[in-house]
């Protein structure tokens, strides 16, 4: 049985020494049944606080949490039937792996044979068999992570909450585990909220990503949509790399807008919904991804610049180019055998594909 999660005007204010800190500010979010949504944002953006309120570890200052149709806002944490994986795993150090996983089942007073069956099943699920009698500190970080996962899955929770579960693992294991967690989540069809500050992790795992900044939701979208159509400068800057050029809107015709930037006019598309946000004469930010800029000879359609640094990374070459406006532009070109390598100090022309330019109000 898989259920949606609905956060309604969720707000959390922390009071300390007389000052109030709004950690979570009027968050509204609908997570569909079986969906994996990541909460992504810099540290201190309130993502963990949201998760803790859903789990019942924190009481919201305002707003409500719905799991399925049930309003759980005033229900204590141990009656919510939610799985929560902690950043530090929070395995009980005085219990064996078996007792850790069996903990939730014993609390539910299941018969011993049933507990044994389900613990074994859960360990199989996370491909970790034969460690039942070990203590957590005898396991590697990756194994502890799996035990933590098995411990929450064994109680068959309605929803799964994960708080940066992979942040204590090394890079390689992280990539492996995220694929495995995602697979498991899809197989079980369990609704999942996954908190991370690692955008690659978010992009790789999520059905949808909610980008948070200072307690507010900046944008909720699929990974593709988020990268291609960031709703704000914060999102554009936070997801992937982005060059942000500030120009002036010189004319708006339907869904096309001309933006003048240092003597070059770029005609960019704007979607109908954002149409009203732009006015002729306003300052406009142009967001350009490094991979959508081509380098070539200088002509009147190009921006002129000087290569400041060129770094060969194998699959791509990363350039920093200083253009006449003084802005430093990042450009990445894919590796090709016959590619021309520009060297530091060389003068180049930058060609921006208008279709890949995203205009945002400043």
């Amino acid at each position, binding site marked *: 049985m898989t259920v949606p999660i609905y956060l309604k005007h969720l707000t959390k204010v922390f009071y300390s020494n007389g000052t109030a800190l709004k950690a979570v500010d009027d968050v509204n979010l609908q997570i569909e049944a079986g969906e994996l949504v990541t909460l992504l944002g810099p540290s201190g953006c309130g993502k963990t606080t949201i998760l803790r309120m859903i789990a019942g570890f924190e009481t919201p*200052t305002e707003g409500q949490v719905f799991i399925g149709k049930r309003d759980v806002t005033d229900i204590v944490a141990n009656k919510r039937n939610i799985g*929560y994986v902690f950043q530090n795993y929070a395995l009980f150090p005085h219990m064996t792996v078996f007792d850790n996983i069996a903990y939730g089942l014993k609390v539910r007073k299941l018969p011993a044979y049933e507990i044994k069956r389900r613990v074994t099943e859960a360990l199989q699920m996370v491909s970790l068999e034969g460690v039942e009698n070990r203590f957590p500190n005898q396991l590697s970080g990756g194994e502890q992570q799996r035990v933590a996962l098995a411990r929450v899955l064994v109680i068959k929770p309605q929803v799964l909450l994960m708080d940066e579960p992979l942040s204590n693992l090394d890079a390689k294991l992280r990539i492996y585990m995220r694929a495995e967690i995602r697979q498991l989540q899809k197989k079980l069809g369990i609704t999942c909220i996954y908190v991370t500050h690692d955008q690659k992790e978010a992009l790789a795992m999520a059905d949808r990503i909610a980008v948070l900044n200072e307690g507010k939701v900046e944008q909720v979208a699929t990974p593709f949509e988020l990268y291609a159509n960031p709703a704000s400068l914060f999102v554009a800057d936070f997801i992937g790399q982005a060059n942000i050029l500030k120009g002036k809107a010189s004319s708006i015709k339907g869904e096309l807008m001309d933006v003048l930037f240092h003597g070059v006019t770029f005609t960019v598309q704007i979607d109908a919904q954002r149409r009203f946000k732009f006015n002729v004469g306003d300052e406009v930010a142009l967001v350009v991804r490094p991979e959508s800029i081509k380098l070539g000879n200088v002509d009147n359609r190009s921006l002129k610049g000087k290569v400041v640094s060129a770094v060969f990374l194998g699959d791509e070459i990363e350039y920093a180019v200083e253009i006449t406006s003084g802005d430093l532009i990042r450009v990445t070109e894919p590796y090709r055998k016959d590619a021309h390598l520009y060297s530091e100090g060389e003068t180049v022309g930058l060609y921006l594909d208008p279709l890949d330019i995203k205009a945002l109000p400043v």
Partner: protein
Amino acid sequence: MRSFSKNKRRQKPDTALVALWLGIWIFLSVFVLYPLARLIYVVFFSDGGVSLAVLNKVFSSWYNRKAFINSLILASAVGISGTAFGFLFAFSVTRINLPKIVKWFISAIIVLPFVSPPFTSSIALTMVLGPNGLLLKLLHIPDFNIYGFLGTWIAETLTYFPVAFLTLTAVLQAIDPNLEDAAMSMGSTAWHTFCTVTLPLSIPGLANAFLLLFGSSLADFATPLVMAGHTFPVLPTQAYMQITGMYDIQGGAAISFVLLVPALIVYLLQHYWVEGRYYVTVSGKAGARSKPKGAGTIAEAVMLAVISFISLFIIFLYSIIFLGSLVKVWGVDNSFTLENYMYVFTVGWKAVKDTVMIALVSTGIGSVLGVAIGYLVNRKELPGRKALEFMSLLNYVLPGTVIGIAYAIAFSSGPIVLTGTMTIIVALCVSRYDATGIRATTATLKQIDPSLEEASLNLGASKLTTFRKVTVPLIAPAIATGTRYLFVVSMTAISATIFLVSVRWSLLTVRILECITELLFAQAAAFSVVLVLIVALAMWAIRLLFSMLYPNYFREQRGI
């Protein structure tokens, strides 16, 4: 739409927690606040109003004024010598490469004073250097007088330096040896490194050790009672004499009240001044720990010579106690006998029984209370946590004499009369000696990641189950520490309990004191040996109990 979400929510503590919190406040009010209030009332209210008349009267006597000054001199001397000894031992154990057996031996010597009755070193010292003393006879010194400042000073130093040792060992262990490596890599010699790096970094620890010993000596009642004699009066014994000798409880209260002032100053200094600068040098996760550096060959040789001498002297004293319990009349008729033990198990049997009974009951109640208070102090949602912590440690921080007199006053008349009962002694032991359990629980709980308790709640366990299945096993080592301490001190306490014993309830320590005053040193020694054995047995039993209750108790307990 948003109207119904307007009412702000606050986390509510459960009713069970509130009930516990209230219960503990009631206990503390009755057994901490109330006696002290009565004491203050007796001292400051006379002739129907607030006055200093009682204090004036007591300290118009030059003898009592001298006692005050003597107390401070003695406490300072013990603080300095005990800290020095403690540092020598601590440095040797942590910084000099000693064979394992030597280190084990040193820690055994350190433990002895903790588990012994408070008179042990005094009795032994008297048997060695007192009238008919063993050493005096051997060295043919006929007219040496151990009683007075000298004897008290030596006995107290030997009794209390292990406290300094434990404090300073922790401090020295916390100093990263890489700092010493750094100094030596810049060309400093081992001795110079010791003087410029290790010693300066230990100063907060040294200050703390000094304050601890100063406070202990100031409050010590047993040692001066035996060793100080009439020429060297100190406050705690003066207060006792005033009450038992002159039947002047008001005067005794006034003398003990004067003890409060330096004791509180020491506590506040320790708490707010030293603790703030304590761990500045700890650099968190150090890399690989390098080998200890020592202090240079000559200095090490001197240190080892000194600690060897002290260690041998302590062993000598304890052997004397044991031997002394097996002879007829020490120094006069040294023939072997078991009569003294017969005496303990016949004449002294009631005291043995009563003491063990009181210690068991106090330990049972006190360890539960200690855990409860330690737990509540860590609960953020309850108001007045600081006050609760302070109040629960107050009886421990204040000198035993003060607490004993306050209890004697408070519970002999008025709404609660407990004089002569076991309850009054148990209440005192519990409210005074649960402090170690409280501190250990608080410290351990602070190290336990709150996510462990949250994980338990998340898996469906109630708060009570979480406490039982997760919290308690994790703080089991702290509970064991508190339990052991409670039992030991309930068995060996005297400074406060001496004011509360009666015909119905007697204590071993009081019997020992009676033996000493009647010059029955052999019997006193036998009582002491029996007491140490009971304590050792109890330590073993508590260890066994905890390893059975929490099989993972001996494993390293850390939140993962």
